[in-house]
């Protein structure tokens, strides 16, 4: 990638930040423009961090993983060609880092976690008073593997094919994990977990 010359610097800085696409910002970042990289960070930090936080359930660890994700992006930003959305790349990196994190801690993705009633459900009727907090708590109680697929599909909106590619599993496995995750959440929210 061609580095920016001094004379071009003004062009980069005087355009409004929003007017650049992720690909343009990536190119500028690859040329050493940390301001451009900061703009990418500003755009994507919340989604990456939220995904990490929901996956690991700890603010400090989520920030550490988010930091690693963006560092890796900075190192490899020159290889980004825009074939896929930058968000997908970021999420894939986040997933990889979370899996590594779990591996280091000896957590297996199929491992079950502490269970219990997280409240927030009017039974036996449909989930009429379920609130976000109860759902967030229930998500944290999902086994890691279920949680990962659930977050990528139902929260982040990825298709099973994309999730399968990210996790290196089959589409069938992704579907099955999602269904189990939803049933588990329902059960947790009904206090049947």
């Amino acid at each position, binding site marked *: 990638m061609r580095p920016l010359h001094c004379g071009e610097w003004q062009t980069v800085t005087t355009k409004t930040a929003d007017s650049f696409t992720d690909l343009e910002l990536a190119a500028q970042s690859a040329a*050493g423009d940390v301001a451009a990289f900061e703009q990418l*960070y500003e755009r994507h930090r919340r989604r990456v961090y939220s995904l990490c*936080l929901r996956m690991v359930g700890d603010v400090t660890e989520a920030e550490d993983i988010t930091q690693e994700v963006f560092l890796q992006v*900075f190192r490899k930003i020159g290889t980004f060609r825009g074939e896929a959305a930058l968000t997908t790349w970021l999420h894939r990196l986040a997933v990889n880092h979370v899996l590594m994190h779990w591996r280091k801690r000896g957590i297996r993705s199929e491992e079950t976690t502490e269970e219990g009633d997280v409240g927030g459900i009017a039974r036996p009727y*449909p*989930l009429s008073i379920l609130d*976000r907090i109860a759902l967030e708590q229930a998500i944290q109680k999902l086994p890691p593997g279920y949680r990962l697929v659930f977050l990528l599909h139902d929260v982040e909106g990825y298709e099973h094919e994309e999730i399968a590619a990210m996790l290196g599993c089959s589409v069938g496995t992704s579907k099955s994990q999602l269904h189990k995750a939803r049933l588990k959440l329902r059960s947790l929210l009904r206090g049947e977990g």
Partner: protein
Amino acid sequence: MSCAKYQDRLSDYIDGALSEQERIELERHMRECWSCWVMREDLLYIRQLSRELPDYEPSPQLWDRIVAAIASENASRSSKAPLRMWRFRMRPAFALAAAILVAALAGVLLQSRSPLPGSQNANLSAPVQWNTLSSSLLEIQPTALLLVHKPTIDSEIVEQRIEVLERQVQNRRALWDAETETCFRRCWEAIERSLSHCRYELERDPENAVLRELYLAALKAKLELLKHFSEL
């Protein structure tokens, strides 16, 4: 078919992944089966709620940590590092270090643009050694700079002198080539950012002696920069 079999298909049903025939069959069953219908409603609601979950905000310090990590990596391979323009937005935690760094910026810059301005033989078209400059900045030890940049003059005097030099620079600016203009603007903006952060911090903590020293160091950097460019 048993309820369990129907319920196995519920996720595919709410995601619209069932065939038409399977969907009709399942809906027919749910019209007669309260428990399967309730499960469908629950799963739909969980999915809907999941899509509305808010994003969380990482701490403001996270970006500073990322920048510090990048700087650290670059410093370790600074001899091979390409141009790095450290124009990141400085937050309070970085304001101090930034003020120190810009205090050295002008000095490094002046060294890189020899012969000295004002000389008839000065080669103004010679490119500034940005690689050298960025590498040098990355290698600066803040603690060492603190010792070097002890304030010896009052900030008000410096500010008055800056005002005079600013006017001189404005008069000469039209004569600069693009390289000189860019070079000046980069340094100017970096110093201004540091000054602005120092002022902000000083408003909150006016008695902080270290902040005052850093503010003065940044002012002196600005003065040096203006001195240098007022002669070009």
